Each structure stands twice: as C-alpha cells, then as structure tokens.
C-alpha cells in the first residue's frame, strides 16, 4: 500500500471560504494543532498565494509576512509551505518566505501554462526551498496536455508536480487517466488536490493514489473554494481504511478539526450547495463562489445562469472582473426580456 505525504491547505485554500480573513491567531493555533496531529506539510497564506492580497481577488486580514510568521512560530515538526502564482507574487515574496523559515514553495499556474513558472521555481530552489510545480484547474485540459506540462515542471527542477482539480468536475476514472498520463511523463512524485463539488473529492483521492499519486492535499472541515477541498480529517480516516501509510494521527486530526471549527465559528462549513454543484458540473473555478453570489445579488441575476456563462467563457482563476461583467449583462438581458 502507498506511503502518503499529507499536505494540509486549510490555512491557504481555506482563506477562499473565509474571505481571506484568517488572522495570525487563527493560523498559529490551527497550525499547532495540525503539527501535533502529525501532518507533514502545512500550507499558509492568502487564497491566491503570496502577493494575492489585492482589490481584484480580495484583501487579506493580515500581511503575507504576518501569516507566514504565525505558522512557522507554531510548528515544530511539519514543514510550512507557501503557494505563489507568477504574475501575482514576486521574487521578494519567495525571499521573505525563505527568510522566515518556509521549507516548501509551491509555484502555481493554470494547467496549460507551465512555462510561466520556470523563473520562480528556479529562484525558490536557489533559496533552498523544496519546490513544487502546481497545476491549477487540472480538469480543464486533456490528460496528454497535462502530462506535457508536468514534464516541463520537472525540467525546471520541481520536486513534485501537484495536480489541483480546482473545479471538482472530474469523476474517478478521469482522475486516474490524468495521473496515469503524468506518471508516464515524469519521474518525480505526483500530488493531487481535489475539490468536492460533485461529492467526489475523497473517492478521487483514492483513484489518484491507485495510479501512483503520493502527495495528497486536504483542508480541515473542507475549508476551500467551491464546495470545499477534500476534508482532511475524512481523508486521513479513509486513507487508513484503505490500508495506506499516513503519518497523521486519526484522533489528533479530529482534535485539529475541532480546534479549527471553534476558531472560525460561527462560519459555516462548505457544503455542496446548488451553486457548487453548478460550478463542478460546468467546470468553473471554485474560487468564484463568493464573487458569483455577491455579483448575482448585487446586479440581479440567477447565479446558475452566471455560472453557466462563466463556464462557456472558460474563465480561469482570478478573473473576478468577468464575473461582474457577465452579471451586469445577464441582469440587462433579464430587464429587456421583462
């Protein structure tokens, strides 16, 4: 059975659920609980990574530096990780992270644009961090294309390639197909990061592992874009049931889930609501959950129509301006038809 490295992204992807408002206090106490539970890697930061705090995608409650420092101070065994997207974050952000003690740098791009990460993968490596090539929206391209892009990441020195299925759109056989294709193209490990829009996150993880994935992402209480991530505490239990090796302790992770829940209460857990089903079905990036709801309410249109429109326009991550534009257009069409 497989030896799994567990990457918890509550304190980064979870920021999408929490409006990018995680405070250093929430980070400190959650990171400590995750570390105590034996989680291998703990990712922290704005939902869109270092440099993501912007008017465009939402401003964070604390600076990158404050959030990273809070995590590093609270963690004794686990490695702290950051995410960054070239075009959003810059070298200075990586340098800050390395200086503060971040050990893992995950450099992300849309799944077809791997060559935009080369500069930053190399810089992160120079700074002594373990680098990961992170392909966003892995369900938005073919298995063959994904494999090509993964091979590029390996050539830039990535330590593993992480396939983030941001939309929660794929079914287990499609995940297996992609991991299989990537495995044939690279010799570095493969990671998998599902979303739960069609209720398939945990099942997709098991399918990915069966094809050779060995790094798995999850979030406590599923906090993350769309219907949320694979729920960490559920994943740990399922992995153990399936007979895989995972260092995270079951009782410890249940405690961490409770600690986190108390810290963010009364904020509700992500659930698979109708909008999330639509996102997953239409293959629309999960980070849009709040912007779609806000724009639909503000401009007066059906959020489901808005999601279908965004799917047709094949929006990729971080195009909140298109959400506003399409909502305005839909509302104008509605008023004309009325």
């Amino acid at each position, binding site marked *: 059975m497989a030896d799994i490295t567990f990457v918890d992204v509550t304190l980064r992807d979870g920021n999408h659920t929490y409006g990018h408002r995680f405070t250093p206090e929430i980070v400190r106490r959650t990171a400590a609980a995750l570390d105590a539970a034996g989680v291998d890697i703990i990712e922290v930061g704005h939902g869109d990574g270092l440099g993501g705090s*912007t*008017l*465009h995608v939402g401003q964070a409650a604390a600076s990158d530096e404050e959030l990273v420092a809070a995590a590093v101070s609270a963690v004794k065994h686990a490695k702290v990780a950051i995410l960054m997207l*070239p*075009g*959003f974050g*810059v*070298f200075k952000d990586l340098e800050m992270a390395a200086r503060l003690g971040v050990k893992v740098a995950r450099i992300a*791009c*849309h799944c*077809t*644009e791997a*060559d*935009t990460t*080369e*500069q*930053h993968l190399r810089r992160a490596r120079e700074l002594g961090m373990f680098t990961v090539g992170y392909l966003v929206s892995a369900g*938005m*391209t073919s298995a063959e294309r994904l494999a090509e892009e993964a091979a590029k990441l390996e050539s830039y020195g990535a330590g593993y390639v992480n396939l983030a299925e941001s939309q929660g759109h794929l079914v287990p056989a499609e995940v297996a197909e992609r991991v299989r294709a990537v495995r044939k193209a690279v010799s570095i490990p493969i990671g998998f990061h599902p979303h739960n829009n069609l209720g398939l996150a945990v099942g997709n993880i098991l399918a990915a592992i069966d094809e050779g994935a060995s790094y798995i992402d999850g979030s406590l209480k599923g906090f993350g874009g769309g219907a949320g991530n694979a729920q960490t505490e559920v994943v740990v239990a399922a992995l153990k049931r399936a007979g895989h090796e995972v260092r995270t302790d079951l009782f410890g992770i249940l405690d961490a889930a409770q600690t986190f829940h108390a810290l963010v209460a009364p904020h509700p857990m992500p659930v698979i609501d109708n909008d999330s089903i639509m996102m997953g079905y239409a293959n629309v990036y999960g980070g849009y959950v709040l912007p779609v709801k806000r724009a639909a309410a503000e401009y007066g249109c059906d959020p489901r129509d808005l999601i279908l429109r965004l799917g047709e*326009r*094949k*929006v*990729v*991550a*971080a*195009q909140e*301006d298109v959400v*506003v*534009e399409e909502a305005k257009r839909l509302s104008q069409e509605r008023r004309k038809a009325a």
Partner: protein
Amino acid sequence: MSSLAAPKRARAAIVGSGNIGTDLMYKLRRNPRFELALVAGVDPASEGLARALELGIATSTDGAEAVFEDGRIDVVFDATSAKVHAAYAPRYADAGILAIDLTPAKVGKSVVPSVNLDGNEKATNINLISCAAQATVPMVRAVTRVAAASYAEIVATVSSRSIGPGTRQNLEEFTHTTSNALAEIGGADRGKSLVIVNPADPPIIMRNTVYVVVGKDVDMDAIRKSVLEMVASVQRYVPGYTLLVEPFLRGDHVMIGLEVVGAGDYLPSYAGNLDIITAVAVAVAEKRLLH
C-alpha cells in the same frame, strides 16, 4: 530623384523575432518614415525570421550583434528579453543608436506617450515598460490628474496564444516595471500589477481592469470626463483601445474596464497586447527621430 526632395527616413532594425518583433515588422514596413533594414533573432526556426525573409527584409541569426555588423542603423527596436536588452543597451548608446526597448529591462527613460512623451525628447534609450503599462498607465493618470490616489492596481488578462517565451520567462520583471510605472508615471502613491494568462479558445481579446483607490468623496463626473479624454488620446495611435466598463465607484476605489483590439498585423486581433506596445514603439520613435 533629387536628394533634396527625398524625405528623411530613419534606418531601423528589429532585434527579437518573436511575437512582438514580428508584429512590429509589419508596422515599420508600411511606415514610409522608416526603412526597415534588418530583422535579427537567435532562433533560425523562428516564424518571425521566416516571414521577414519572405518579405525581402535582411535577416540575421546573430541577434543584436547584427545591428553592429550593419553599422548604419539609426534606431533599434529591441524585443528580446530584459536580460539581453540590459546587456546591449550600453553598446547601442556608444554607437549613437536610438534604442526603443520593448522589454521590461527599464534601462532608459520609461515612456507612456499620452502621459509623458513630452519632456523626454533627448532620451537615447526609451523603455516602453510593458504592454499592460501602455494600456493602463494612461487610465491611472486620467484619474490622478483630477483626484488624489493612494493606490492603483491593474489586472492584465492576455490570451495564452499571444504571449511567447520571452514574456513567459519575464513575468517577474514585467510585474515590477508595470507596478512601478503605475506610481511613477501614473501618479498613484503605490501600484501593483497582476497578469493572468487565459488559455480559452477562441483566444480572448486583451483586457485590462484598473482599480484606483481615491476615497469615497470624489468628483466622479470629473473622473469620467478625464478618462474619456485620455481614451481618445490613446486611440490616436492605438485605434483598437476600447473602454469596456466606464469608470464607476466601488466603495473607496474607481474601477475601469478596457479592451485592446489588435490591428491584426501578425497575430489576429485578440492580441491587442502586441499591438499596443508596437504601435507605441513606432509612434515614439517617429516623434523622437523625425520631428
């Protein structure tokens, strides 16, 4: 033909045969003020060099060295990369060649024509910052000339097909020079630029969103008027520059939406990001050399 009657033409070279250089080639070729004497690249398989050959323009795979081999170039349009331009800029200067820098190297004076071309007439190296800066700095300036702005943020969304290896390997430099330009030329206290690469098919037209933090008590009529005037000014050299979302106040910041429809010289019209920087390059060189 009497040499007294012949109009003065500038002898131009393009270095860098990627998307930007190739688009520029078509523009310079049809501009009677320029004699396009050379297109130089380093990749013998590049489409840009192949097209130059087809058009009967002298080509070279010696890269920037070819400019010095020619020896009679008045102006070089450098569309290589930040690193390459930084290395060759001193040599262009020593040889008395005007350098128009289309990379994010930022060695010389940064110019956005509708904002600060006047006052930079003596510059021997003119940097055009980035396509996103050319599209958005005018909008930021349009706001800051009528209202105080503490922060400007821009998001440039470009189609995957319109950006080549040069740009993809320079996102760091691109981000810095564009962010700085929002403040230094745009007039905001602080600037930040984001770039998003969109792989949708059919390719999306280059779009830019501009956010300027002005506080809640602003004269939106004055801002709107200023923005519309500035759009008209940019359209004089980039006809495809289009205001998509007129300025409106969203809390404490103004939001403006733009689209740049390219002239379709090289890549089809979705590649407005090429068009804006090449149209600006030609306009700036023409003004600098021939007026």
